[in-house]
Structures are given as structure tokens and as C-alpha cells.
């Protein structure tokens, strides 16, 4: 299959050198967008638009009232002008709601957009073993493979639909991992989230295919507030892929998603992200502000949650996919590649909260900074009192390209149990002249040589990605690093 990040198959080098943002186009579709601004009425209108059950409206309003009282966080190692939350529109949906059963009924322009992004649904439907739930601005447009999945008992649908069809599951799990008051952006998301994906894997089921969602921000000035909820019942397994792009615009756009994962006894969830939101231009104009809360709860014994992320986009990334290791013997993993170029800033990392006995966690973080990019790893490993024999291994490597970029590492550790065993390694390196010459002497051009060295640096993370996604991730790095050396 071709995982939907870039169609770079036969790219021309000249075109590459220009390093344009490939996904920068705007689809001209009539959309139903709220006026900018946020108050209780807007929250009520979002809920009404989606015909939500009463408990959901209550949930949103509670979150909104909390959010009003919360201060905006200012501690991340990033720097940006204050966001005016009243200038953002909180709902945007394509006006003609496409039918869900046939591709013919989907607005051709939408299909075109997906084709440009490299996700031809039709092709994917036929050739790939991947179910795609594409989110166009705020409303999920189409879910493929639903039949195969439903035979296996797997539920994979937009969360707005799940609210209609499985309200009891949503009521039980929504906010159970990331409570509304968790942080500023999580509270905002809880109040105004428009859509996202819902996945439920029943007991003992191994999801028969990789599940993939594809986010894209289109409408001008709309914040995108995705909400994703994944539940794996006892002994279940699922691998979930998330890819993101956004069109190129001068203004900054806000993206504040919340992702919650729940793994019951013996269950495993693998969550992979390739994020390619518009990073802004070389002077830092435009780009996405990506403030995301992702957290997984290893609720049952022997459960496992892995986060793998490749972050090359966004003007600002603020993201700490975390694991709460509640069940005994549960395992949390975090594999991350974050690249910052030009004026991009990334503050990312993870939290591993060890609660159960014999819990273990692994953190592999690879930061690449080029141009004036700033890359911060911020991680917390917390071993609680009851977590006997907890283990953590952390490795944080930084690669610098040029001398105007920066890498920062803040590993925080809190240990309340003396049996804990923690290892931490950190390195900072530069691509050396020797390495470059060695590869050139073997016939590789500068670009190819750099990308080979960078890919080698990221290998420990890439090998955690599903194969095709790994290929796309490599290409993405190649493109993102255009002009980074020389």
C-alpha cells in the first residue's frame, strides 16, 4: 500500500530544492462554518449540530466552564504570540454531507483533495489492507472497510457517529484517561471538539487490518479539535495510524487534539503518527500550532501501549504522548523522531507513569534540528510507591545541522519506590564532513548522503513504524530537510 503522506515517488530534484510545502492547496468547497468566537452558546450549537445526547452537552459545558478558569500554559520551551481564542471559528463542516455508502456520492472535489494528498480511497479500498477514516476539517467524511471490520466485531467510526450508535461506550470511556480539567488545551478540546475517530476492539480480537485516519485542516481560521478514543478489550490488539497535513496559509492555525487509549488485560495498542502539518515559511510566517494531549492507560495486567511518532511539520509542536502503567507487568513505549527546520519549534516528549508492579517503559527520542529550528525533549518518568521492580530505559539523541539551531533535553525523574531500575542515555551529534565525504565517495550526492545519515540516526524509531509508513516517513524527512545543509 502507499501510506498517505506524500506522493514523492518520482520527484524531480529541482522541484525538491525549492522545498515547497507539498500539501499546500486549498479545496474550494462550500462549507458550513460558524462565525469566529467562543462562548457557551457556541458550545451548545456544536452539540446541537451533531444532535448529541444530553450527557455530551453537559460534558462539554462542564469542560468549557473549567477552561474559562484555567490559565494558558507557559512553561514549554517554545515561544509564540498569544492566541486570540475569539478569532477562531469552532465549527466547519462541508455543507453537502456526503453519503457514507458509495464513493460516487462523495463530492468529487473532496476525492480530488485526497488524491492530491496521496490517499486515493478507491485505490486503497481495493488494494490495501487499511481502513481509512478521513477527517476533512471537522466532519468525518468516509469510512472504508467498515464491513470487514464489523464482521470481526471491530467498531471504527467517526466519534460523532459513535455518539449516536454507541453512546454507552462513549459515556463510559470519554475523559477517563484525559479528564477535562487535565490541561488548558484538553479542556478546550472537550468543550468544542468536532469529530475524530472511535475504535473499539472486542475481547480476544486481533484487528484484521491497520486502522488509519487522515487529518487535514482546510477552512481558514478554523481550529481543529479532534477527539480520538481507542478501546482494546481483554486480549485485543490494534495498530492505528494517524497522518496529518494542512494547506499552506499565512495565518497560524490552531490544532488541539485529544487522544485517549485504553488497553485492558493482555491487550495491546500500537499508535503511530506521521505529522506533516504546514510548518510556516522560512521566516516563521504561518504554520500550525499543534497542541496535543495524547495519553494511553494500560489498565489491565500485561497490557501494552506503544506510541511511535514522526513529527516534521507544524510551526509549534507541543506534544507528550504518555502512558499510565496501571496494570501489573504492563509495558509503555515511546519512539519519536522530531525534526525542526527554519523557524520551527518543537517541545515534545513523553510521560511514563508507573503504578503497577513489574511495569516497564522504553523511551527512544531522536531530535533533529536544522536552520533556526529548536527542538526540546521533555520527559517524565514517574515511579509510584506501589510500582515494585519498575524499569525504564530512556535514550535521547539530538542531531544538529548547522550552528544556528538548538537542541534541549529535560529528562525529569520521580522515584517513590527503591526497587526501581532506571537507565538514561543522551547524545548530541553533528553530521560530520567525514561521513559526508565517505558517502559521496561511494557515489551518493549531497542530498542522498545527508538523508542516509539522518535516516540511520532515526532507525530505532522507523523500525517501529508499519513498513509502508516507515518508507513515507523517510521520504518526508528527505523533503523536510531540503536545503538544510550546504
Amino acid at each position, binding site marked *: 500500500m502507499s501510506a498517505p503522506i506524500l506522493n514523492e515517488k518520482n520527484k524531480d530534484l529541482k522541484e525538491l530544492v525549492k522545498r515547497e510545502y507539498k500539501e499546500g492547496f486549498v479545496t474550494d468547497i462550500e462549507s458550513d462554518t460558524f462565525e469566529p468566537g467562543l462562548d457557551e452558546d457556541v458550545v451548545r450549537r456544536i452539540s446541537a449540530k451533531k444532535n448529541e445526547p444530553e450527557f455530551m452537552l453537559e460534558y462539554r459545558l462542564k469542560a468549557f466552564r473549567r477552561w474559562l478558569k484555567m490559565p494558558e500554559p507557559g512553561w514549554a520551551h517554545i515561544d509564540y504570540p498569544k492566541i486570540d481564542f475569539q478569532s477562531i471559528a469552532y465549527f466547519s463542516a462541508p455543507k453537502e454531507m456526503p453519503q457514507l455508502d458509495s464513493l460516487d456520492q462523495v463530492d468529487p472535489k473532496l476525492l480530488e483533495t485526497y488524491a492530491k494528498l496521496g490517499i486515493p480511497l478507491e485505490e486503497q479500498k481495493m488494494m490495501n489492507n487499511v481502513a481509512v477514516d478521513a477527517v476533512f476539517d471537522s466532519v468525518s467524511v468516509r469510512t472504508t472497510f467498515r464491513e470487514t471490520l464489523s464482521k470481526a466485531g471491530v467498531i471504527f467510526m467517526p466519534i460523532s457517529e459513535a455518539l449516536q450508535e454507541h453512546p454507552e461506550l462513549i459515556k463510559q470511556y470519554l475523559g477517563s484517561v484525559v479528564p477535562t480539567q487535565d490541561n488548558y488545551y484538553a479542556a478546550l478540546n472537550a468543550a468544542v471538539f468536532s469529530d475524530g475517530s472511535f475504535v473499539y476492539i472486542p475481547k480476544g480480537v486481533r484487528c484484521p487490518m491497520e486502522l488509519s485516519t487522515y487529518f487535514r485542516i482546510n477552512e481558514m481560521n478554523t481550529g481543529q479539535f479532534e477527539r480520538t478514543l481507542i478501546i482494546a478489550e481483554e486480549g485485543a490488539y490494534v495498530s492505528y495510524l494517524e497522518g496529518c497535513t494542512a494547506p499552506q496559509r499565512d495565518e497560524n492555525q490552531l490544532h488541539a487534539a485529544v487522544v485517549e487509549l485504553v488497553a485492558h488485560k493482555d491487550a495491546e495498542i500500537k499508535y503511530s503518527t506521521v505529522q506533516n502539518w504546514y510548518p510556516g515559511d522560512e521566516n516563521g510566517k504561518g504554520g500550525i500550532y499543534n497542541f496535543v494531549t495524547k495519553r494511553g492507560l494500560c489498565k489491565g495486567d500485561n497490557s501494552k501501549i506503544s506510541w511511535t511518532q514522526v513529527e516534521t511539520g507544524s510551526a509549534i509542536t507541543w506534544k507528550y504522548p504518555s502512558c499510565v502503567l496501571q496494570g501489573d507487568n504492563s509495558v509503555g513505549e515511546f519512539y519519536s523522531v522530531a525534526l525542526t527546520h527554519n523557524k520551527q519549534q518543537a517541545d515534545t516528549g513523553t510521560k511514563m507513569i508507573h503504578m503497577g508492579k513489574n511495569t516497564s517503559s522504553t523511551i527512544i527520542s531522536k531530535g533533529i534540528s536544522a536552520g533556526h529550528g529548536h527542538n526540546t525533549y521533555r520527559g517524565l518518568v514517574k515511579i509510584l510507591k506501589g510500582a515494585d521492580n519498575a524499569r525504564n530505559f530512556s535514550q535521547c539523541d539530538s542531531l544538529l545541522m548547522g550552528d544556528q539551531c538548538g537542541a534541549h533535553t529535560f529528562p525529569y525523574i520521580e522515584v517513590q519506590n527503591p526497587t526501581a531500575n532506571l537507565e538514561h542515555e543522551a547524545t548530541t551529534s553533528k553530521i560530520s564532513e567525514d561521513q559526508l565525504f565517505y*558517502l*559521496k565517495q561511494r*557515489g*551518493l550526492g549531497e542530498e542522498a548522503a545527508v538523508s542516509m545519515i539522518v535516516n*540511520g540516526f532515526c532507525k530505532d524509531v522507523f523500525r517501529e513504524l508499519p513498513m509502508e509508513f516507515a518508507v513515507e516517513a523517510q521520504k518526508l524527512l528527505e523533503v523536510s530537510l531540503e536545503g538544510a545543509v550546504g
Partner: protein
Amino acid sequence: MLKVTNLHVSIDGKSILNGINLEVKPGEVHAIMGPNGSGKSTLTNVIAGRDGYEVTQGSIEYLGKDLLELAAEERACEGIFLAFQYPVEIPGVSNMAMLKAAMNSMRKYRGQEEIKAGDFLKLIRQKADLVEMKHEFLKRAVNQGFSGGEKKRNEILQMAMLEPKLALLDETDSGLDIDALKTVSHGVNALRSPERSMVLVTHYQRLLDYIVPDYVHVLANGKII
């Protein structure tokens, strides 16, 4: 094949090579000996196109082309191979992946198709056997954690894969035990052909017992004497 004429090279204004003349014809093997710091590596690096050297006088002609006009990777694609005195480690990049990319880059330059995965695998195994390298080394990251001798062997493996027209071997024999020296020499000798030329840089006569050169030059104070 290669004609170096009155070559003067300096680094940061400091003169290192002072009028080198060297002509290598197809099929010939030339040995260059000389004390430490005499400029042997400088000469091979300049021929291979490494940055940081200033050619103040003279010329290098290769297969009728002005070599100094070509970038390092173009020279490689034109068939110049340098076995490094100090091979570089590239973490996370497997020997195989690097060689495959190298090979395909050269094939592309020459207007050939990419090598088929199966053919590549067969070839690399065969060449690994030639230099008596265990196949597990093919999957390891380029030179990472290799012993000194293993690194040198790996250079010869790469040479065998890339089949250069002109091979520059910079102290490939240094640090090899006698068995390794024999296998490496065997590997090099297997690649000798009427079309392929070689320049061997060495400090030791014993290499020349195994790889018998057509000419021996001595480099001292930046000049061949």
C-alpha cells in the same frame, strides 16, 4: 587512465604537495610509499575530490577528463574508488543498504537500471565470500563497532561490489594480521584486470610481496622522488 601533472596542493595556505607527477595506465598497479605526513593521503583525497584542499597549480586528467572539474560523487560514478585509511562509521545505516544505494546511484549516473534486489543479494554474498567476511557483517551498520581489520576488509568488499576503474587504496594493509593481509591481498588481486588500475599507499614492503606492483614511488616532502 590517470595523469597527475605538476600538482601543487595546500591546506589553509600551508603547502602540502609540491609538484606531483604520476601517470597510471590501464591495468597498472602503482605503489606509493613514504614517511608519515609526507602527503600520501592528501594525494589520494585530492584525486577522490575531498573538500578543503586548494589546488594551487597543476592538473589531474582522468580518462581524458579534467578531474578537478568534477564533484566527489561524480568522480566516484566515473569509476574512482578510495579505500579509506580511516573508514568512517555511519550509525543506523546497514552495510547492505549503503552499498545498494551507492550501486544504484552509480548505475543511474551511467544510465543503467537499478539492480534487482535478488541479483544484489547474490552479488554481495559472493563478494563477501571473496574477502572472507561473515554475512552477518552485511546487515550491521557501516563500520560501526568493526575492528580495525574488519573495517579494512569492508573497504575491499565495497571495492569488489562497485568495480571501479581506478582504485586508490590508502594503507589498506595497516593494522592487518598476516591472515587478514593474505585475504585482503587475495581480494585485491582477484580484482586486478587489464582495464582496472590501482594505486596502493603503504608503509610496508610486505604488502608488495602479496600484491606485486608495476611501479613503486616514494613520496617525501610533497614530491615523488
